[in-house]
């Protein structure tokens, strides 16, 4: 059977499964809708959290990014896993004991202030929307590449599917579909990795294969370092970023992970405090399976790529090369006219390749923005996972499986984020501020309407992606680190922290983070361009600036709180009670 047929079958079967589960787990109350009734087992919650967490970016792009960044890619590996240690030790058990529906709920009650609640809602909406836009785009890309449908139609199909199970089941439906999605995505990620690891090193476990010898008796990593040095790249196992920047980015990603509202809210869904701790551990275990495999895939595919293309004649190159060239993710510019592919350090074109209609002497697609560098090859990072099975000559069903896995990753993350957005509106804004006496039924209806609107907006972002989306998704972590994380941690560990301190800390943190992002990363269209890296403060990249913004937030919070009155007695009692696990009531709205 062709790849196309296999893909339709696998995507069809998995989608049917998601809908079946959503129908079985319909939500009847706001509690079902917001926190899945508070009765999810730690194991199911761990899987759902892992699926929620691992987005299209983790599944499709991460291994590719590491493949090209080598050691520098470690920031994502450590950053996106180490945050769970902070979650399990510093946040999840206490927030579960607190027993409300949302992060703004905690901020609003702990800081006895609707201003604090509103600031938190705004932060949650900014973080979640920037993040969800990337997911919808990811769905579109998978559809267009594997099923030859238009990207926009792909986005619309994705919207329809998410709408189906989110609207019907709320958190309950989403949680149980995410369990299924985790199984699909981890299977889809591991199967090709195991095949390739065995092919290249004789060891089927990718984590070990990565450090094993290849058929010619050389350690794989040594061989890759050697290939890199020969071609003028920096050694794979040593990086190019400064030690401080690696440190700052890793910390910003870790803290940001622990501060993301769609991750935190998962720990409101388990019955007890001890379940919250345990399910954070299980979630990280499930995530670690993918995150320790990704760097192995990066090494395999990098070595495979260099060995397959470097100095080889274009006429003799395998079919997959030309397929991906046709979709615009590979470009070869025969600068020296020898008919061979020279792949060395340096960009092959000025910016992404711009193709022209004509074909070259060897049938390759010509580009109009070539440059003088010796490098002749452009490879998009995303194809390292997508094309890996083809590069390694794996059977068609494995290639199709990757498509189903990519869709599972994108859909599960999008659903989790959309739920946070709708909860922020129906619960934190409408129920808690605008119309406190709204009925249970009314609130449920409001939640469903806001999820519908949120999906429409996310879909529009997916179809007309603003140029800054890709840049901003990575920075969502910086924003979460600069806003929520300090406010929550101080709320638990510093009894003296009061509303004046927390609010001023959050505002200062988010403002300076946004300022730095705009000044050094995105620029303001028509007003100013982003400033160059040479002007970064202390050599900190915008991705790593969340670390500095967080430290500033903490300093401001502590200083302001000590200059203003202590929080009222009943709030100090709340703090004392969340520090003790027993007597956690079910999550409730009041």
């Amino acid at each position, binding site marked *: 059977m062709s790849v196309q047929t296999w893909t339709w079958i696998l995507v069809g079967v998995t989608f049917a499964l998601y809908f079946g589960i959503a129908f079985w787990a319909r939500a009847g109350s706001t509690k079902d809708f917001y926190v899945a009734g508070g009765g999810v087992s730690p194991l199911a919650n761990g899987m759902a959290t892992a699926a929620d967490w691992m987005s299209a970016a983790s599944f499709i792009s991460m291994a590719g990014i590491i493949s090209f960044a080598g050691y520098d890619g470690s920031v994502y590996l450590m950053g996106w896993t180490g945050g769970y240690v902070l979650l399990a030790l510093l946040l999840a058990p206490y927030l579960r004991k607190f027993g409300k529906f949302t992060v703004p709920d905690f901020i609003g009650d702990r800081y006895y202030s609707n201003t604090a609640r509103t600031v938190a809602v705004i932060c949650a909406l900014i973080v979640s929307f920037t993040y969800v836009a990337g997911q919808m785009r990811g769905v579109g890309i998978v559809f267009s590449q594997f099923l030859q449908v238009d990207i926009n139609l792909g986005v619309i199909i994705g919207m329809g599917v998410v709408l189906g199970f989110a609207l019907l089941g709320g958190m309950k439906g989403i949680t149980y579909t995410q369990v299924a999605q985790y199984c699909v995505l981890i299977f889809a990620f591991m199967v090709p990795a195991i095949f390739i690891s065995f092919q290249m090193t004789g060891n089927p476990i990718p984590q070990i294969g990565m450090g094993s010898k290849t058929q010619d008796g050389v350690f794989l990593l040594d061989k890759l370092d050697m290939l890199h040095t020969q071609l003028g790249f920096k050694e794979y196992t040593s990086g190019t970023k400064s030690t401080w920047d690696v*440190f700052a980015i*890793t910390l910003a990603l870790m803290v940001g992970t622990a501060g993301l509202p769609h991750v935190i809210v998962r720990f409101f869904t388990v019955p007890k405090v001890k379940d919250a701790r345990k399910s954070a551990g299980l979630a990280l275990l499930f995530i670690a399976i993918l995150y*320790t495999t990704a760097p192995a895939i990066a090494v395999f595919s990098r070595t495979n790529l260099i060995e397959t293309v470097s100095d080889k004649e274009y006429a003799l190159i395998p079919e997959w090369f030309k397929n991906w060239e046709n979709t615009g993710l590979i470009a070869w510019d025969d600068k020296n006219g020898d008919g061979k592919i020279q792949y060395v350090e340096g960009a092959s074109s000025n910016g992404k390749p711009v193709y022209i209609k004509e074909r070259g002497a060897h049938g390759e697609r010509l580009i109009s923005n070539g440059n003088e560098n010796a490098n002749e090859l452009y490879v998009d990072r995303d194809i390292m996972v997508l094309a890996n099975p083809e590069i390694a000559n794996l059977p068609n069903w494995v290639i199709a499986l990757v498509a189903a896995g990519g869709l599972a990753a994108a859909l599960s993350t999008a659903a989790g984020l959309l739920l946070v957005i709708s909860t922020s509106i129906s619960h934190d804004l409408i129920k808690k501020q605008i119309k406190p006496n709204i009925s249970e039924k009314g609130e449920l209806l409001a939640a469903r309407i806001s999820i519908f609107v949120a999906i429409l907006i996310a879909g529009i972002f997916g179809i007309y992606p603003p140029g800054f989306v890709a840049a901003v998704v990575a920075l969502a972590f910086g924003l979460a680190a600069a806003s929520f994380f300090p406010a929550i941690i101080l709320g638990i560990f510093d009894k003296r922290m009061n509303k004046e301190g927390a609010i001023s800390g959050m505002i200062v943190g988010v403002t300076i983070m946004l300022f730095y992002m705009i000044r050094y990363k995105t620029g303001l269209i028509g007003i100013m361009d982003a400033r160059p890296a040479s002007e970064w403060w202390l050599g900190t990249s915008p991705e790593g600036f969340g670390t500095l913004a967080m430290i500033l937030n903490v300093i401001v919070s502590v200083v302001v709180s000590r200059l203003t009155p202590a929080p009222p007695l009943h709030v100090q009692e709340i703090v*004392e009670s969340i520090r*003790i*696990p027993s007597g956690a009531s079910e999550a409730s709205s009041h």
Partner: protein
Amino acid sequence: MSEKQKHATAYWKKNLSYLVILLTIWFIVSYGAGILFKDELNNIKLGGFKLGFWFAQQGSIYVFVILIFVYVRLMNKLDKKFGFDE
């Protein structure tokens, strides 16, 4: 301070001391071995891996998982000891 409060304070202190120890390990394996001292550790080899590189891309993640489960165990025991378990 009432008996109940003393009890709660002792529990919290013990919890904090666990946190300090576990977070120190958390810091050492990632920021220490994987970032700050990676060049020195890279002179040591673990099979085909340079040790610093291994910590950055594999080892730290394994330790993170272990840390959480150790904390789960320690706290479950502590909850029992203080009668806070359910």
